[in-house]
């Protein structure tokens, strides 16, 4: 009886009694949800256009962030003053590096592997992950780095609200992250719906063969999506890096994006966002109110269980395309 009370009644009583704490937890869940959604977005972009389940998205986030910091340090070392927009120069150069990476991946990995089963391509992205881990550590060193938040003019500090008889404090960087994420999703949506390349991308996503037959270059499309995923990775890296340090430990957040993906469906951009928010909020609220019952740390698997429960009812995810099976 006591246990049932603790599971079904007590958490809700707490939520009502301390609404400010509830709102704070909700907000934190929302923010981490947005960041999960950003990583999931990178996955979805690549999966939609090439059917590759890109495990390397997590390490691409770390790699992009490290490249940004590395180039910035290098520029400062050459005597470029912070006032000279060194950070933005570094940002531009990093985007260039991500383009080179996308180009290299297409040329050296995807092109020879075209027409292979999904699992082979999936494993190849594992190879890419290993390569980037080794390469990144070799070039940038393994120790955690601090993100150049101020030089990029990202806001710092927090805003406190007095609502619901308590204090809710929002980090400005989190608000910025949410804004940037929304802008990015909106841009991508416009890009997909309104531009020529976007239409080509959607065509490739629908059917590789049909797209090829009307003269769309698959190679070009793949470079573009990997480049887009690289830029998404860079934005994610900056946001995560601003919240904590940039280190290789960050790459495990890619694993956190997986339940987001299956929840939203592999092929849906809105799904990635909604899934991210559901997972982020569910995880934080679950950990905060139900975690102590089971011994803490349930955050590590709660997301997967939430996703699993959703999947049992909708095997293609919330927004995924309906799976039609034929003989």
């Amino acid at each position: 009886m006591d246990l049932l009370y603790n599971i079904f009644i007590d958490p809700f009583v707490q939520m009502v009694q301390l609404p400010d704490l509830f709102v704070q937890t909700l907000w934190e869940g929302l923010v981490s949800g947005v960041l999960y959604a950003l990583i999931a977005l990178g996955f979805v972009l690549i999966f939609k256009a090439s059917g590759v389940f890109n495990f390397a998205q997590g390490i691409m986030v770390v790699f992009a962030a490290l490249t940004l910091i590395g180039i910035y340090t290098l520029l400062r070392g050459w005597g470029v003053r912070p006032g000279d927009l060194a950070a933005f120069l570094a940002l531009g150069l990093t985007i260039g590096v991500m383009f080179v990476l996308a180009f290299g991946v297409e040329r050296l990995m995807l092109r020879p592997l075209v027409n292979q089963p999904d699992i082979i391509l999936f494993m190849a992205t594992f190879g890419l992950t290993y390569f980037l881990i080794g390469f990144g550590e070799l070039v940038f060193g393994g120790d955690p780095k601090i993100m150049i938040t101020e030089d990029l003019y990202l806001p710092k500090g927090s805003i406190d609200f007095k609502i619901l008889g308590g204090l809710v404090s929002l980090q400005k960087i989190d608000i910025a992250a949410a804004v940037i994420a929304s802008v990015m999703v909106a841009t991508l949506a416009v890009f997909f719906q309104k531009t020529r390349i976007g239409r080509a991308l959607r065509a490739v996503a629908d059917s590789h063969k049909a797209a090829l037959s009307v003269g769309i270059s698959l190679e070009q499309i793949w470079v573009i999506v990997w480049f887009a995923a690289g830029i998404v990775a860079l934005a994610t890296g900056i946001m995560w890096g601003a919240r904590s340090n940039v280190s290789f430990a960050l790459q495990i957040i890619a694993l956190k994006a997986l339940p987001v993906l299956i929840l939203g469906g592999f092929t849906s951009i809105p799904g990635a966002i909604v899934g991210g928010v559901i997972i982020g909020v569910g995880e934080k609220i679950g950990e905060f109110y139900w975690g102590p019952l089971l011994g803490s740390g349930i955050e590590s698997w709660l997301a997967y269980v939430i996703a699993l429960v959703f999947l049992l009812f909708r095997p293609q995810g919330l927004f995924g395309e309906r799976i039609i099976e034929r003989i």
Partner: protein
Amino acid sequence: MFYREAGQYKSSYEADAAVFPLRQDRIAIAAILLAAFVLLPLVASDFVLSSVMIPILIFSLAAIALNILTGYTGLISLGTAGFMGVGGYACYKLTSIFPGINIVVHIALSGFFAAGIGVLFGLPSLRIKGFYLAVATLAAQFFLSWCFIRVAWLYNYNVSGAIEVPTRTLFGVTITGPTASPQARYLVVLCFVVVMTWLASNLVHGRIGRMWMAVRDMDIAAELIGIKLYQTKLLAFAVSSFYCGVAGALMVFLWLGASEADSFNINQSFLILFMVIIGGLGSLVGSFFGAAFIWGLPIVMRVAPEYFGITINSATVEHLQFMVVGVLIIFFLIVEPHGLARLWQIGKQKLRVWPFPY
């Protein structure tokens, strides 16, 4: 020249359906087994036995487990290490509750616990397919890892949170614990691996294996010809997890000697998946090749520079190692997506028709 079937006639269906139809193959297998059982324990150093051979054998068993699930039944799983952990912890609990029963029995029994857990987490597999299932098995991996840390009962409420393997004997010879000799441990592991590989070979070549492969190739078609999907998939999960469990128990008791939750983390699952892919999906011999390759490569990379008299600092070596492993994985996938097992087959075929091209 020596490797061809000329003059070997088969007069029964059994002989025709044999796993090794060629006499030369049978001789080779016997020679390999003889070398493994007699020669290696006599000549190999302790380092080779305990840091190369034992891990390779144990990983081979784990790779066979994953191959049954992924290679033969087509269900991608990323929870291998979790199921191995179940085996390891189950064996530890069994031997602390029933210290009188022989450890070998416990190791075999611990597979059944893993099988039970595996079936439980395999339940969603009827509704969920492909990568969705892979992510669903991650739920098993993370949940089980969490259990190994949080459920203190599993490690007998040790303060350190790790399990220490007690000393146990077989026929009067110490085989587990800190005093066990590498030779004894190696032979026990080898016996387990040989027996279980033989069982697996019989399973995948028989009716059950055919059912698994039918499900892998197209599950709806398999259902239409009368294969019960649910039972077949769950059986694959059970058998695979059983093998994982035994591999995990062997790993804790005969290789590591002590273990904590971190031994069974997600990276281990990925490592075993590499072994299966590099070795060859749907091939038992490929599991051995994959395990030897993935486990052997870093060792070779550590030793090779010293051999040539080049000194590189160890951190650089480790980074280079990651890069080389990554590149090699991609390279192998491009050159031979069917893995080392296919290369092996091609080599055998070439040898058979040599000196003619075909």
